[in-house]
C-alpha cells in the first residue's frame, strides 16, 4: 500500500492519447470516416488509488480503459506504465508487463469462455506467465484465488453457465488476480449486476485494494458507486475529459455544467429534497462529427456565443494546488 518513493507516484499514465475508429471506407473515398472515440486525453492513475472515470454511454470511457492497457493502439499520444513508455512496444515485449495490469469486464456473460471450466480459466493466466512450478502448486493457487474472491473451491470443475452474474464477476476477478497485478482497469464491473450484488462486488474490490495495494481505473456511469470507491474522479464527455479532481471536491463543487447536470440527475434517497431538473437537453452529439469548440456547447445552459462554439477549452486547474481541473469557458463557481 505504501508508495515506493523510488518509483514514480504515477503508475499508469496516458498522455494526450487519441483513438479514432474507421466507420466506413467506401469505394470512392479513400479516406474513411472516423469516429473520434478518444480525443487528446491525459490521465494519471497513482499507485494505490482508485481513479473513477464517469460519463454517458458512448463517450469513450471503455476505449480509454483499453488504451491504458494497450489492448488498442492509439492514433496519437503516449501511454506509460510505471515510467516506461509502452506506446510502441511490441506485443511480445509487452507480455511481462501484462502481468502487472489487468482488466475486469462489464458483461459477466461474455467475459468468460463458455467452453472452459473455472479451473481452466484461472489456470491459463498462471500458465502464460509460468507462475506455478507444477500441477499441485497450480491447483493450490487456483483454490486460494477462488477463496480470495469468495468462491468455494468446488467451483473449479464447473462451467461459467452454472454460475450467477455476480459469481461470474468473481471468477473474472480471480482470473485477473491470478497474475498478481498492481493495476486493474474495472470496465463497468457492476453495471450488469443486481443492486444487492453490486455492493458485494464493490466491497470485494475495496478489500482487495486494501490487502494487495491495487490501483484501479474504475469506469462507471453510476455516480453513487464512484463517489463511494474513487479517490479521484474524471468526467468524460464525447472523447474528452471535462472535469477532474479529488472525488469530494468534484462532488461538492462541480464546476463544469455537464458534471453539475450529471450529479443533479443522481437519485437521492430524500423525497423532501428539491432537485434541479433538465439542466441538459438533447442527446450527445455524434463522435463522427463533433461540434466545433467545446463539444458540450450545443447542450450547455451557460454557453457563451462566440467563445464556446469556436475554441476548445483546456483542462485548467481552478485554484492553484487544488488538483481540481475543469475544461470550460464559463465554469460554475461555488454558490
Amino acid at each position, binding site marked *: 500500500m505504501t508508495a515506493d518513493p523510488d518509483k514514480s507516484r504515477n503508475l499508469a499514465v496516458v498522455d494526450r492519447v487519441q483513438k479514432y475508429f474507421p466507420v466506413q471506407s467506401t469505394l470512392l473515398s479513400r479516406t474513411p470516416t472516423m469516429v473520434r472515440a478518444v480525443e487528446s486525453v491525459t490521465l494519471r492513475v497513482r499507485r494505490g488509488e482508485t481513479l473513477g472515470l464517469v460519463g454517458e454511454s458512448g463517450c469513450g470511457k471503455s476505449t480509454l480503459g*483499453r488504451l491504458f*492497457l494497450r*489492448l488498442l493502439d492509439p492514433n496519437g499520444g503516449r501511454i506509460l506504465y510505471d515510467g516506461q513508455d509502452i506506446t510502441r512496444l511490441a*506485443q*511480445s515485449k*509487452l*507480455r511481462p508487463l*501484462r*502481468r502487472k*495490469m*489487468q*482488466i475486469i*469486464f*462489464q*458483461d459477466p*456473460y*461474455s*467475459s*468468460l*469462455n*463458455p*467452453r*472452459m471450466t473455472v479451473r481452466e480459466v484461472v489456470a*491459463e*493466466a498462471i500458465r*502464460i*506467465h509460468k507462475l506455478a512450478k507444477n500441477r499441485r502448486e497450480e491447483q493450490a493457487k487456483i483454490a486460494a484465488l477462488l477463496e480470495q474472491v469468495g468462491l468455494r473451491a468446488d467451483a473449479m470443475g*464447473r*462451467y*461459467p*453457465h*452454472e*454460475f*450467477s*452474474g455476480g459469481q*461470474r464477476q468473481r471468477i*473474472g476477478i480471480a*482470473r485477473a488476480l491470478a*497474475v498478481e497485478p498492481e493495476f486493474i482497469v474495472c470496465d463497468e464491473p457492476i453495471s450488469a449486476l*443486481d443492486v444487492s450484488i453490486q455492493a458485494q462486488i464493490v466491497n470485494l474490490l475495496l478489500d482487495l485494494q486494501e490487502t494487495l495495494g491495487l490501483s484501479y481505473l474504475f469506469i462507471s456511469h453510476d455516480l453513487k458507486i464512484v463517489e463511494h470507491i474513487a479517490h479521484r474522479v474524471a468526467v468524460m464527455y464525447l472523447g474528452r475529459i471535462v472535469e477532474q479532481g479529488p472525488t469530494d471536491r468534484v462532488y461538492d463543487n462541480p464546476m463544469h455544467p455537464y458534471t453539475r447536470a450529471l450529479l443533479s440527475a443522481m437519485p437521492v434517497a430524500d423525497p423532501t429534497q428539491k432537485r434541479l431538473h433538465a439542466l441538459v437537453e438533447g442527446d450527445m452529439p455524434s463522435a463522427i462529427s463533433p461540434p466545433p469548440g467545446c463539444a458540450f456547447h450545443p447542450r450547455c445552459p451557460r454557453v457563451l456565443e462566440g467563445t464556446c462554439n469556436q475554441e476548445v477549452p483546456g483542462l485548467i486547474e481552478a485554484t492553484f494546488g487544488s488538483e481540481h481541473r475543469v475544461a470550460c469557458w464559463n465554469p460554475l463557481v461555488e454558490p
Partner: protein
Amino acid sequence: MTPRRRRTDPDGSVVFELSRRKLPVPPSGTTFYALAVMLRSRLARTGALVLSLLVFIALFADLLASDLPVACVLQGKVVLLPNVTREIQSAEGASLRIDPLVLYGPLQVTQDVLVPPTTRHPLGTDMLGRDVFARVVHGTRSVLLVGLAAALAFVALGVVLGALAGFFGGVIDTAVARLVETLSAFPTLVIALVVQTIVARPSVTTLLLAITLTRWTEVARIVRAEVLLASEQDYVTSARALGAGPWRVLVRHVLPNAVAPAFVAVTFGIASVVLVEATLDFLGIGVPTAVPSWGEALGEAREHADAWWLFLGPGLMMFLCVGSFNIVGEALRDALDPRLRESVRIDPSGLDALSSRASMIPPSSASFDPSSHA
C-alpha cells in the same frame, strides 16, 4: 419446441397445458445441450435412427451379404469371420457354419441372370447374375466413406482458411475473400466432371480434390463470420490482456466458439457429396471402385427398364441416405443457431416461460443458458 397443448375450457377460455415432462438437462458443456435439443424433435430422431442404420450396414456389410460364412468349422479347425479376413477361398465341406443374411458377395457372378426378388436374392439379381442386395449393402460402405472423406476435407480447408481470414484480417482476409468469390462461381458437378474427364486416371483422390476445391468456400464464409463474432467477446480481450499470443487466442478461445457450424456443414456435405458421386457414376464417368456404388448400379439399371428391382435397392438407399443426412443436418443447425436457441431455453422446473415467474429469475440460475456461447 417445448411441448405444450392447447385446449379450450367449457367457459370458452383457451388454456395452455404445461408439460410436466422432464426435459433433458445436460450435466455440463454446450455440445451435449445442442444434441439434447436436437433429439427432441421426432423428425430428427427418425433421421438419426436411419443414419445409424446406414452406418451399421456399412460397418457390418460382410455379415449381411457374403459368399463365405460368418464362422465355420473347416477340417476340424474353427474359422472366424473368413468373409472379412479372406483366409480361406471357399467354405466347401465346412460344418457348423453360421451364414450371413444373404449368401452372395457383391462381385460374385451366378447363373441366375435378372431374377426378380426371391428369398435367396431379396432384391433380385442384375444382368450379370450378381446379387443386388449384396451390391447395395457393400456399396453403402464405399458411398459413406467417400462422402465422409470429401466432407471432412472441404470442411477442414474451409475452417482453416475462414478462421485465418476472420482472425488475422488484412491481406489474408482479402486474399481468401477473392478466392472464395472466384471459386463459388463454379458448380461442383461441372468441376468434378471436367476434372474426372481430363485427368489421365480418375480416382477417388481426384474426385475428392475436385469436390474439396469448390465446396470449401461456403464453409470458409460461415466460419469467418463466426470467428469475427467470437473475436469480439470479452473473454478474447481478457486472454490478450493476460498476455496470450495470437495463436493461443485463436485455438483456445476463438475457434472452439466458432466451429459449431462446421459440424452442420459436414452433415450437409456428406449428403451433397453422395449425390455428386452418384451423378458421376450414373453418367459413367465416376470413380472405378472395386465395389459398385449406388449410382453405378442405377446407371446399369437404365438399360433394363423392365427389371424394376434393379432400381429399388440403390434408389431407396440413396433416398434414405441423402434424406437422413439432410434432416439431421437441419436439426443440428437449428439446435446450434443462437437465435433459434433463444426460444428453446430450458427451465429445469419443467414449467416454461408462460409462467410470469420465469421472467423474474435471473437467466443464469433459472435456466440452462446456451446462448452465452457463440
